[in-house]
């Protein structure tokens, strides 16, 4: 499992393989991270944590779509102060990196949470910028290059751990946001968060999710997520984590070829928690078949002329 071909150095993190648990999936407890790591994940990302506890939205928070799901959890989280304990405990039992996903309502807020996470032992911090921004309700921080750059700068100044920015696909041109994040100091990017979506029930004639709108994830969004990674890699030499609809080794390889150095897996965990293992095995076979000595040998190959 810890074969050399599969292990990667990602923005300074050492991963035994290029699969990671995506943020928000079983992301609250050390025991869950431990189990996910045992299921083969090369790293885990926590549920997004803010400065204060949030209970999230009422149910329904999840609705099934064609080849995917739509969720609107409302960022339930215990707040960074409580979560600090979970990070510390996780560090004592995990052998793979733990990346703490943070969100905030201002650059200061982001920086404060990120610093606490880093101080507690987070191996890296991932910024979730797909939450609505207070001053401009409804619009995501991740949709404004200016706001994004401001936040990245402040967080970068507050921590000395790798800083990963998770981009939103709900933008006109994702490369503009990627550029803003990289120039502001991001060490890596995760592409992407969920697609804004809605589910309406014909019988009751109402939106199903308590929050009405939510984020679409799963296999159905893979072609869009893959395009986001491809677009960014086409223009920038930044390490990228592909995310969106990965559920088997072939998906993972597609993201690597598009220019990602690693992949995150979320929705596919519902049907199979061992998905990390099976993807890693599949990628390993693939590398062997292609005579590639390392994952990084295939990163971005789809961009060859």
């Amino acid at each position, binding site marked *: 499992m810890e074969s050399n071909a599969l292990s990667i150095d990602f923005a300074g993190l050492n991963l035994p393989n290029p699969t990671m648990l995506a943020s*928000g*999936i*079983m*992301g*609250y*407890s050390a*025991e*869950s991270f*431990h*189990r996910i790591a045992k299921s083969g994940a090369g790293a885990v990302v926590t*549920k997004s944590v803010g400065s204060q*506890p*949030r*209970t*999230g939205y*009422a*149910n*329904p*928070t*999840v*609705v*099934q779509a064609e080849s995917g*799901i739509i*969720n609107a*959890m409302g960022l*339930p*989280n*215990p*707040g960074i102060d*409580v*979560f600090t304990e979970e990070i510390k405990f996780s560090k004592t039992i995990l052998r793979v990196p733990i990346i703490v996903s943070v969100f905030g309502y201002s650059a200061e807020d982001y920086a404060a949470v990120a610093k606490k996470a880093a101080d507690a032992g987070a191996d890296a911090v991932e910024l979730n910028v797909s939450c609505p921004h207070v001053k401009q309700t409804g619009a995501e921080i991740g949709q404004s290059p200016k706001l994004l750059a401001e936040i990245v700068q402040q967080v970068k100044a507050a921590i000395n751990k790798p800083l990963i920015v998770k981009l939103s696909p709900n933008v006109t041109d994702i490369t503009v946001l990627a550029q803003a994040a990289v120039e502001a100091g991001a060490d890596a990017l995760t592409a992407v968060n969920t697609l804004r979506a809605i*589910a309406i*029930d014909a*019988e*009751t004639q*109402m939106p*199903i999710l*308590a929050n009405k709108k939510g984020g679409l994830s799963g296999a159905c969004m893979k072609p869009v997520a893959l395009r986001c990674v491809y677009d960014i890699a086409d223009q920038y030499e930044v390490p990228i984590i592909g995310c969106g609809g990965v559920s088997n080794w072939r998906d993972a390889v597609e993201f690597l070829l598009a220019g990602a150095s690693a992949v995150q897996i*979320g*929705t596919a*965990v*519902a*049907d*199979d*928690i061992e998905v990390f293992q099976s993807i890693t095995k599949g990628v390993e076979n693939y590398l062997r078949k292609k005579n590639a000595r390392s994952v990084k040998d295939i990163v971005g190959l789809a961009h060859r002329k």
Partner: protein
Amino acid sequence: MLDLPTANNQLRTTQLVQVRTESPTVKTFMFTDRLCSKAKPGQFLMLWIPGIDEIPLSIMDTSNGVISVTVKAVGDATRHLHNLAPGATVGVRGPFGNSFTESRGRVLLVGGGTGTAPLLFLAKQLASKTDRLSFVEGAKTASELLFVKEVGGICQEKNIITTTEDGTAGLQCLVTQPLASLLDKEKFDMIYVCGPEIMVKRIFELTEARKLPIEASLERLMRCGIGLCGSCVIGKYRVCRDGPVFNAAQLREMKDELGISKIGFDGSRIPF
């Protein structure tokens, strides 16, 4: 093999066909649903009360393709549900989760409150397959003892013990009390438990001390119901996906949390 959870996750709307009052605080709601009609005892569904909430409920019966859930009014969602009449529209996802294993030989079922519901479903399935079926049921007061008649129709009277806290029916004690001596006196090949977590914990202590096999159904806060969101985690397990039924080995692994703490709406651990 069970269906993949996402295969049963499509929300269906259906109409209540019947509502039956079981006790002053408990009602049974009946509706048709193709997917849930294949559910096994122990599995649960997510019931959407449109505009209000969506909550996990154990499946109590599936006979003739009619799905029954037995619900206690404890808060906003369950109270709204109690106000619904036949014809009202509800939404259903599921069935989700694992189910009780099918034991043979001498079997004991221990139910507290609405925890009796899935055990009644199980009892019906096991009735013809076991050598002896014993049922221990507890409630606060006589009027809250659920399915007394139904259980009486399945188990022999001598194999039924009921307890109430106020002594209005059966023994005046907690359901756990008569259990210790019962377990010492009789041999059981399997003990199935469903009820408040403190009760489950006590009974697990009793079975552990005697090295008896047990399967207990747990309840945790549920949102997705399909093993993603992490709301229902206990130890390394997701109650919605790896449970809700857990065996002795698994319960042992979660003893730091069982009856002690759970994950609250904000993801923090809250004590019971």
